[in-house]
């Protein structure tokens, strides 16, 4: 078990010394006040997510006051590793939508790619600007030891959570300004500017201005990440549009404004592929912009991330990312994958069935921490139930060992207790590849829990990267 703050029971890691002193000085009264202040702040700015529950229309994610800290050298390794992975994932997408070298080299079986729903046939033979398919990648990492990190999954479509990263920092600076005088915390508030630069650097061929018009395309207020959509577009100073605000005429995409139509060059879309273009994808979709794919393929507009980018974060493809890094970049992977058994292979399936009580089993298409089995934490009956599901549909599952996620000090009922955490940093890839100087740390607030998802009792923390 690795603890982020304690080297041993009595020894605090150097970079947590300041925080430890600060914690020792904080009274229960102050903690309560600050917790209430944070909650009020989050409610007021509206950083909430929708639930179906009748009693609480909108929930906020629990925020823990104790920051999670990385030293400069720890972060440098992560930075290199995440950027490496992001480059490889983009190279993979460019390859499979064009020559398919990785398939010809027999590294990834072709049926694993071409049979996937997330493989977008309409993208074949088309290369987006700078050959970048996924300009914003969120990599979910866990730490198991001092120098040991594993990638749990890649998010190449529209990773969310960056607004929490930024707002968590805002509230910390507002509530505890002194902490930022005594600790040299790398700022993160330039993220929206960098995101905008990234989008601008990905303007389509037919864009003939040095100031391309970018918009953020949202599914609307009912989407659980809606706050993030409005937050990011506000911070970037670009319009947040819904698909009804956009239309295609001739070779270009336009938005409806009070001045009449205005041409749009780059669409940062936060909606799924299926809802982009009813002419191309889901003909029954009532949302979407008819014809946008034609404009896209002829260089009139760029869509970020590219349709079909989702194949790169498929759980079945995940297994091959270390191979991709070697194949495309000629480098050794800096970050490790978790050992994964694909249940569609007979050998793997047998192993998984024999060792169910030691493994974590996930649905290939699942997310949000739902539909998974944590063997060591589950009752006999739920293991047996999963065994039946698994045998009936082996293709639908993968299995991994239960990782010993690191503990981070967390305030539980005004006491400091260890709780498990993960990390999602955000990597931008446009003209340059760059990593946010921080990320979203999610924490499993329940004692002994391994599940950090907000839908299942997860909270968040501010994440610090100390300056050199």
């Amino acid at each position, binding site marked *: 078990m690795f603890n982020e703050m304690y080297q041993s029971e009595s020894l605090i890691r150097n970079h947590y010394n300041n925080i430890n002193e600060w914690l020792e000085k904080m009274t229960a009264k102050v903690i309560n006040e600050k917790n209430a202040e944070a909650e009020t702040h989050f409610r007021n700015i*509206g950083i909430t997510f929708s639930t179906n529950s009748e009693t609480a229309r909108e929930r906020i994610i629990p925020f823990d006051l104790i920051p999670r800290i990385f030293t400069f050298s720890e972060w440098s390794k992560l930075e290199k590793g995440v950027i490496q992975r992001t480059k490889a994932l983009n190279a993979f997408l460019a390859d499979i939508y064009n020559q398919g070298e990785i398939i010809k080299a027999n590294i990834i079986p072709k049926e694993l790619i071409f049979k996937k729903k997330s493989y977008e046939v309409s993208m074949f033979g088309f290369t987006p600007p700078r050959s970048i398919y996924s300009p914003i990648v969120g990599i979910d990492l866990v730490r198991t030891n001092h120098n040991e990190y594993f990638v749990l999954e890649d998010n190449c479509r529209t990773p969310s959570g960056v607004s929490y990263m930024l707002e968590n920092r805002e509230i910390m600076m507002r509530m505890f300004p002194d902490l930022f005088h005594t600790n040299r915390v790398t700022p993160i508030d330039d993220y929206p500017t960098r995101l905008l630069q990234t989008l601008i650097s990905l303007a389509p061929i037919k864009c003939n201005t040095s100031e391309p018009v970018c918009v953020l395309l949202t599914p609307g*207020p009912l989407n659980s990440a809606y706050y993030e959509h409005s937050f990011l577009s506000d911070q970037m100073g670009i319009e947040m549009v*819904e698909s009804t605000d956009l239309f295609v005429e001739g070779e270009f995409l336009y938005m409806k404004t*009070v001045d009449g139509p205005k041409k749009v060059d780059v669409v940062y879309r936060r909606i799924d592929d299926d809802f982009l273009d009813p002419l191309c994808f889901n003909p029954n979709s009532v949302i979407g912009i008819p014809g946008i794919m034609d404009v896209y393929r002829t260089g009139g507009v760029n869509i970020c991330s590219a349709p079909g980018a989702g194949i790169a974060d498929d759980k079945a493809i995940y297994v091959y990312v270390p191979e991709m890094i070697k194949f495309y970049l000629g480098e050794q992977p800096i970050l490790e994958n978790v050992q994964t058994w694909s249940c569609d292979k007979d050998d793997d399936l047998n192993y998984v069935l024999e060792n169910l009580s030691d493994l974590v089993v996930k649905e290939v298409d699942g997310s949000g921490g739902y539909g998974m089995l944590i063997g060591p934490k589950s009752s006999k009956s739920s293991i047996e139930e999963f065994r039946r599901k698994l045998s009936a549909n082996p293709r639908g599952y993968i299995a991994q060992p239960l990782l010993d996620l690191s503990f981070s000090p967390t305030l539980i009922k005004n006491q400091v207790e260890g709780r498990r955490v993960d990390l999602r940093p955000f990597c931008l890839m446009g003209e340059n590849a760059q990593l946010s100087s921080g990320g979203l740390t999610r924490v499993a607030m329940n004692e002994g829990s391994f599940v950090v998802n907000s839908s299942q009792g997860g909270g968040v923390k501010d994440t610090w990267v100390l300056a050199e």
Partner: protein
Amino acid sequence: MLSRTAEYLYWISRYMERAETNARLLDVGYRMSLFPNPNGYNNEWESVLAAAGAIQGYKNKYNIIEQKKVEDYLFFDEDNPSSVYNCILNARSNALVVRTSFTPESWLAINKTYQEIIKLKNNNFNASDLPNLTEWTIEQVNLFRGSLSSLLRNDGYNFLYLGLFVERADNSARLLDVKYFVLLPKPQYIGGNIDNMQWSILLRSLSSFRAFRWAYDGDVTSTKIADFLVLNSDCPRSLSFCIQNIVKHLTNLTCSPEKVNKIYNTLKDLNIKIQEEKIESIVNFGLHEFVTQFINKISSVDSDIQKEFFN
């Protein structure tokens, strides 16, 4: 600016204005219920409902008009599309969509109001809480309006104010329409108790009770009140003031000059007429007829704005 953004901004201030109007009407009704009058205590609630444009909806739901029910209907009822509660919810869900088009302060003002009204609705309220509720509402709306002062003076700002004044023009005119008869000089009423009470209803519901005293010397007469509420452009709720501001914010729009002109042309006559008209000739022509024409004009301006800019 996106057409949809303009539309949402326009409606946010309409909803906030409407919330205030309803709160003021409830306040008047509450006051009146404390005074005896010859026809019993309750008949004011009917005209409160009428002025709020809610009488049909109310009667669909309740058989009798009674204080607690009217209060609930106008303040909290989710079935009443114009209840203070719904106005705030609608303003907030619009604000959520266009929060990038106004300041964080404006968003906070609306969102805090929303948080609080959810809490208020969950606590059962007593009839005697009403003054606190109406006062709270007016305060919240003022907070929102105050926050607008830090906005860029761009088209978004003008659409917000167009919404505000279209709504206010409509609200003021409808109130006058419901109460126009008390402003007609009828010898048998002049100086009587009912008269004074009715006049004070009008003035209070237009937040002009004290302002009127400052604006006019001498005796209170129905003609003076009519002049104040219709023609006096110092009075921020008069029809004249509203129309002047609609014209101002319309012509300040920098987008689509031809659309602006088109709408302005339909308004021009009314604007000139209301600046030059004398109250006596309006009363002779028929206050009711005048107000009805005014309401129709505002409603057509509203649909022109929606048609030209938001589609």
